[in-house]
């Protein structure tokens, strides 16, 4: 079989036969790091282009169509421009913090890649608290934003960072609670367990209304957590020029920009894993012709297909809804999403105990 796990196993066998176990581990770690960085670069290029195209089509425009065939090289040209630009550090800035902040954003994004299952048996680290790990690490993101805002020594940056702090801290609650519904139904925090529990149908089909509500709250909460419109108060270009990354330029700005898109990918991958079965093909019941037909489509295509559908959903939000004010944003979380997801969690727990789901 030609699959990602097969390639990984081949490489592992070859390395184990050639080197001793320690060197095999070291080389495999380096390879995994390179693969993650490569994926980051590819995702950055693809997602920026996709965002611009989706935006253009929603606004009845054409979008980038000059650089390369159909404008496909546009994001590559943008990257080239950002690389050659000067990375300026303002005089009044706290230099160490200012320069470290974008890297913390990237490190968080890289750590979040660890428990994601990209294909069948293809995962960097299937730790037994995978979902908890993701929710815990993703909250470090706010530290990089606060660092960037504080060290810039700029009122707009600081305001953007404070808004972002309030926003991420509050929306993590409802994101966490909606993740909890799936954990309750599965009875495990391990990503592979969650995916295998969806072998006879994804949770969005098996879980009835509570899972639907959890899915919707999850999508809203992660849109807020990744600081994307309609919750992009941290940037709010009409009020705060560019929010927390006002003072950044060149590659340091590009790292923040990239981290935003990587985070979008990661939260969509988590959403796809929890609600849409990750790499699990579309199955109904067990052992029938339909399931076998679906199994012919490679698992990596299922995973990336679902993830990109969710990414499109988030982009669709961005280009449809107007930005919320900070009080509306916090109202939405504390008065609506949090109570709803708490009651929803109770409902799901009752459903899981009484066995009402399929």
């Amino acid at each position: 079989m030609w699959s990602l796990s097969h390639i990984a196993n081949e490489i592992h066998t070859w390395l184990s036969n050639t080197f001793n176990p320690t060197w095999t581990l070291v080389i495999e770690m380096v390879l995994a790091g390179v693969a993650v960085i490569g994926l980051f670069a590819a995702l950055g290029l693809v997602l920026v282009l996709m965002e611009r195209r989706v935006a253009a089509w929603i606004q009845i425009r054409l979008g980038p169509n000059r650089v390369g065939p159909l404008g496909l090289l546009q994001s590559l040209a943008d990257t080239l421009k950002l690389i050659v630009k000067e990375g300026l550090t303002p005089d009044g800035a706290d230099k160490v913090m200012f320069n470290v902040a974008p890297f913390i954003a990237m490190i968080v994004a890289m750590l979040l890649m660890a428990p994601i299952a990209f294909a069948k048996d293809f995962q960097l680290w299937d730790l037994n608290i995978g979902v908890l790990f993701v929710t815990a690490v993703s909250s470090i993101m706010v530290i990089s934003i606060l660092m960037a805002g504080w060290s810039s020594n700029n009122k707009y940056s600081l305001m953007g960072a404070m808004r972002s702090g309030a926003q991420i801290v509050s929306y993590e609650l409802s994101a966490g609670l909606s993740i909890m519904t799936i954990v309750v139904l599965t009875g495990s925090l391990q990503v592979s367990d969650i995916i295998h529990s969806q072998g006879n149908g994804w949770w969005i089909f098996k879980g009835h209304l509570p899972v639907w509500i959890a899915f919707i709250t999850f999508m809203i909460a992660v849109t807020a957590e990744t600081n994307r419109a309609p919750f992009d108060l941290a940037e709010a270009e009409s009020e705060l020029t560019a929010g927390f990354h006002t003072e950044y330029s060149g590659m340091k700005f590009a790292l923040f920009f990239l981290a935003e898109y990587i985070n979008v990918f990661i939260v969509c991958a988590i959403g796809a894993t929890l609600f849409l079965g990750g790499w699990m093909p579309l199955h109904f019941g067990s052992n029938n012709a339909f399931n076998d037909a679906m199994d012919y489509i490679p698992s990596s295509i299922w995973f990336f297909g679902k993830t990109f559908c969710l990414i499109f959903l988030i982009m669709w939000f961005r280009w449809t809804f107007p930005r919320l004010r900070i009080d509306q944003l916090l109202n939405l979380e504390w008065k609506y999403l949090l109570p709803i997801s708490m009651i929803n969690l109770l409902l799901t727990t009752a459903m899981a105990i009484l066995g009402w789901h399929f």
Partner: protein
Amino acid sequence: MFLTDYIKDVTGAVKSLATGMKRTLYYFTHHKEIITQEYPDNRDTLVLPERFKGEVVMPHDEKNEHRCTGCTACELACPNGTIKVITKFDISPEGKKKKAIDKLVYHLELCTMCNLCVEACPSDAIKMAQTFEHSVYDRKQLTKILNHPGSKIMEGVE
């Protein structure tokens, strides 16, 4: 009471958001109806909207005659001093002095295309043209004299 209001709030919000998303999905799936134009490529076939205003021109007929009487109504109407009418006195064959324009100076760089001069003109001597490629390297070239050299006023325009 509170609970019904609350639920109404939530359902109303979901409904209105769904309406918006339906609209944008329609636009997304009908991306062939593009409202922007690929300008430098379609220069030959470019169709501008009827009301597009590019610059003020003074139409001349084939005998090199215009309709401007030199009344300076346009100069007075212009909010930012774009138009300067320099008048002279023509001596008619009967020996009468008659006011006419020497030059109608038009500063394109000051013009906001507000159309007030065209509305003020009592004899329809000036109008708005649809040309818009006005970039030049020297701003002196943006100061234009609208009446052609050697032109004179059309018969019967007072």
